[in-house]
């Protein structure tokens, strides 16, 4: 008799409690067993249409609402949790294990939440549990980055709660279904989702905090938070037109930052925003094909981005170094990691037969079908950019390029197993996409490997070649990419920033003026608060008894006067 009444997150939370006490091999077994048991429970015990709710105040909190959309994300999180757990098996620190389990559990709670209050609770739990994965790095930078991360994430939750309240007042329902952008509630919830989804200008927490986490922590982080946000958007705002434009912006702007960034995990963080951009576009288009594309791309992204973060985590773990300029030549000592990293890089670049191809092409096709021609071009440009900064730059700088002289050893066995698992999945999904397509929430007859789609892929390659040629002519790019040497590296990291700086200088006076005005206002406000509310301010001082009594008299007089009128 299988307990189908058990919400999926409970297994993880209970395991986290037990992990507090367990140690050694017992804990290792538990870390591995949790996602496996949870996955089996989800696969066999929770059919489509399961509903489970508990009462709180006058509401029913819907803890489990299982339909094909939430189940797909549920499966995906279990796979991600399993891979991340294997990857983190060598970690002896209890905090990270417990935080990882709680974090994965919160993500499950959020995607199965059927009402906005439950969603809010897990939304905040995601923030609170994940920050420990950043703090576990124990550097000053990580502490600070974690605090900034927490503040932004909690703010997102507060906005969500405010939106939920207004939504409840307006519609007399807390159900988490289609919300739409209408009214203040829709906007508040949209911004809350947008923060977690790393919309442009709301994205800084991601590139700030993810690269500061521990090698294993980043793998966890990359899998859950943003994917929960994509799920929430797909649930609450499918077909919202503005998302297409936001998504297109998200695919393009990180490319420039990724190109000039030296910290390879930060490059991946930017590339993550770029990939989420494709999903957001898919959600924004809102057709069955586009939504399928968005969620299947989320599914694939968890695996291949996880693989890339794992390979960089392994490099960081072995060498203690993650700056592109200080790495290189590691293929000699970490050949297996290098090969696995290249598999991840091929997937993210959407090479045919790798997983990125089968999902990204769905979004692109849907875009053309719905007539977003210019945005489609932007996405093409972004695809080329991905190919460059994630497909080429990451493996190239870490494992090839100039030999940095670092001689280390192959990644630990558990890391290799985790990475191999992810790599196998990447190729399997890429070559046998029918299994993934069979799980997708909406009925769609789509097959990527036919003439038109191969043609589309050829166009993509052609376009990226064109981009190379154009950049070459404009003198912004090294003449030959594969033979980038230290001289050419200078172009990356000096010339491009210099170009950016020139533009920046042009805009500087206006920006400075705005900044100065803003900071004057903020300063004036802080001064006012400090003067009146600070430790020795009027409001906080100990008053003479006479003045206190005077206030009593004043208030009495006012009241009597007002009551007489």
């Amino acid at each position, binding site marked *: 008799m299988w307990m189908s009444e058990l919400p999926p997150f409970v297994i993880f939370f209970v395991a986290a409690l037990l992990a507090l006490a367990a140690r050694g091999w017992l804990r290792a077994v538990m870390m591995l067993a949790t996602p496996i048991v949870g996955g089996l429970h989800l696969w066999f015990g929770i059919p489509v249409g399961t509903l489970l709710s508990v009462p709180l105040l006058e509401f029913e909190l819907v803890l489990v609402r299982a339909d094909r959309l939430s189940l797909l994300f549920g499966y995906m999180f279990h796979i991600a949790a399993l891979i991340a757990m294997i990857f983190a098996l060598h970690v002896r620190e209890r905090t990270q294990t417990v935080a990882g389990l709680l974090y994965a559990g919160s993500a499950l709670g959020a995607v199965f939440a059927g009402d906005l209050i439950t969603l809010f609770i897990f939304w905040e739990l995601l923030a609170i549990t994940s920050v420990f994965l950043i703090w576990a790095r124990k550097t000053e930078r990580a502490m600070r980055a974690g605090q900034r991360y927490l503040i932004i994430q909690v703010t997102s939750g507060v906005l969500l709660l405010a939106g939920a*309240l207004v939504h409840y007042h307006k519609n007399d329902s807390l159900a988490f279904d289609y919300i739409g952008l209408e009214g203040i509630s829709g906007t508040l919830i949209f911004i809350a989702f947008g923060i977690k989804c790393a919309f442009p200008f709301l994205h800084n927490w991601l590139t700030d905090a993810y690269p500061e986490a521990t090698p294993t922590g980043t793998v966890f982080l990359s899998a859950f938070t943003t994917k929960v946000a994509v799920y929430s958007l797909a649930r609450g705002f499918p077909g919202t037109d503005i998302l297409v434009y936001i998504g297109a912006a998200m695919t393009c702007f990180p490319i420039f930052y990724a190109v000039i960034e030296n910290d390879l995990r930060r490059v991946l963080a930017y590339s993550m925003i770029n990939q989420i951009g494709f999903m957001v576009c898919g959600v924004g288009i809102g057709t069955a094909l586009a939504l399928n594309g968005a969620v299947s791309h989320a599914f694939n992204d968890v695996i291949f981005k996880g693989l890339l973060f794992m390979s960089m985590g392994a490099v960081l773990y072995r060498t203690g170094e993650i700056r592109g300029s200080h790495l290189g030549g590691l293929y000699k000592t970490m050949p297996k990691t290098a090969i696995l990293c290249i598999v991840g890089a091929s997937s993210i670049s959407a090479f045919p037969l790798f997983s990125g191809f089968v999902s990204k092409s769905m979004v692109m096709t849907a875009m053309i079908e719905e007539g977003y021609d210019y945005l489609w071009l932007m996405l093409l440009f972004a695809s080329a950019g991905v190919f460059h900064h994630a497909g080429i730059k990451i493996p190239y700088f870490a494992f090839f390029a100039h030999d940095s002289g670092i001689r280390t050893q192959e990644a630990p066995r558990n890391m290799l197993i985790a990475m191999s698992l992810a790599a196998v999945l990447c190729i399997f999904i890429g070559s046998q996409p029918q299994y993934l397509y069979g799980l997708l929430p909406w009925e769609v007859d789509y097959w990527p490997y036919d003439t038109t789609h191969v043609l589309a892929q050829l166009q993509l390659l052609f376009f990226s070649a064109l981009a190379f040629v154009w950049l070459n002519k404009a003198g912004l790019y090294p003449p030959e990419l594969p033979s980038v040497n230290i001289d050419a590296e200078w172009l990356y990291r000096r010339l491009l920033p210099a170009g950016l700086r020139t533009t920046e200088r042009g805009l500087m006076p206006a920006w400075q003026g705005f900044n100065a005005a803003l900071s004057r206002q903020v300063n004036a406000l802080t001064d006012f608060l400090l003067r009146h509310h600070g430790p020795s301010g009027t409001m906080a001082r100990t008053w003479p008894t006479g003045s206190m009594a005077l206030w009593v008299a004043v208030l009495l007089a006012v009241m009597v006067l*007002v009551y007489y009128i």
Partner: protein
Amino acid sequence: MISSAVTLQLPALQVALPLISAPLGLLLRRHRLVWALAVVVCWMSLAISWLLLQQVLAEGTISYAMGGWAAPWGIEYRIDAVNAYVALIVTGIASVVVPYARRSVEQEIDEGRITYFYVLLLLCFTGLLGMTVTGDAFNLFVFLEISSLSTYALISLGRDRRALTAAFQYLIMGTIGGTFVLIGVGFLYVVTGTLNMADLADRLPEVTQLRTLHTAFAFLVVGIGLKLAMFPLHLWLPNAYAYAPNAATIFVAATSTKVAVYALLRYIGSVFGPVISYEDVPFGEIAIILAVIGLLSCSFVAIFQSNVKRMLAYSSVAQIGYILMGIGLASKTGLMASLLHLFNHALMKAGLFMAVGCMFYRIGSVRLDDLRGIGHSMPWTFAAFVLGGLSLIGVPLTVGFVSKWYLVLAYLEQDLWPLAFVILFGSLLSVIYVWRVVEVAWFESPSPRAAEAREAPLAMLVPTWILLLANVFFGVQTELTVGVAGLAAQILTEGLR
């Protein structure tokens, strides 16, 4: 039937038991014995108030004629859902605080004075319970004075010399407040010739045109406002809370202002009736304006405080702002939110002050500087503080969420959007001041004092955690609080529109 004879006397016992035990404590002299007596009395009082509440819920209002003198002439104790609920708050808090107090008091107060501490605490307890159960306007004033006088003395027992000036200031302000209440009651007597609250409620609607009545209302509101620390009458409170002995701070912060709020509710909801209070005089509007200013201003002050007890004291004034916002709204949901917050704020603030008391017990200071790194040396204590802080902020699954939820709903009901946002903004401010403590205690390297500290003794830790788990329990299981508060709000808004 003995049991039914006892049941009939419960309203009197609620007050008489602690009243008699106070002088008994003086006779016992040995402070351990007095402590044990106080614990027993508090627990028995809790049982009594629980029985009374059950009786009220089952049979409706209880009227008890003191000494057999029938109502308008004799003193009547009149218990309905409103004061049964408040009595439960007071006795419940006392039952947890007094066991906690033993270790804390032995460290903070001179050996010879400990007996007096418990005696004063029992007297204060008597006064607060008397204010709660009595149905007589003058009797309420008498109990108000009993509780106030004993509170002044309790505060002056603080080891910090500033406790003396704080107690003195509170004495002056409290006396002014008491006098105002007396003047208000006097005016009411002049126009109606009665002191019984139910009787007053019958007669006042006949004389609504009289200015005397409005003046009485103003005096009563300001007088009680002083006791409940309504902004800007709160100035006595921060120092009194900050420098009193920790056990006294916990007890007074969690109960005294709550009972004063009850007295205010009783006057506006029962004696004057909601029609006079909200429609004849603009009490609601004034209360909301003062509440909002107090809420924001005191939250800002709390953010800048370096003494954690003083910070929590300012936060208390801010929280009273929430309660007044609910009262000022003149709607059933608003009053219900206020009544819920009475209960919930008592739980969270007592829990927080207890956690701070544990830290004080080990390091002898509550300055932020000295609390650096204390989260590592006293993990359980500090975890309790964080839980209390979450409740104060209003995180779901804690009591803070329940009352804020209803308060926001009450404001949305009336389409007062901006004020609903003020409530949420207030929550954000409390995130800041709670976070300041968390940041210092968890992320900074330990101060010399914190480095040497050990975990607080179990005798203090267990009561602290009982209260904080109650924060979670009543945050999830809201049947009792929401049910009774709803019923009480119903009673207080009868006749309104």
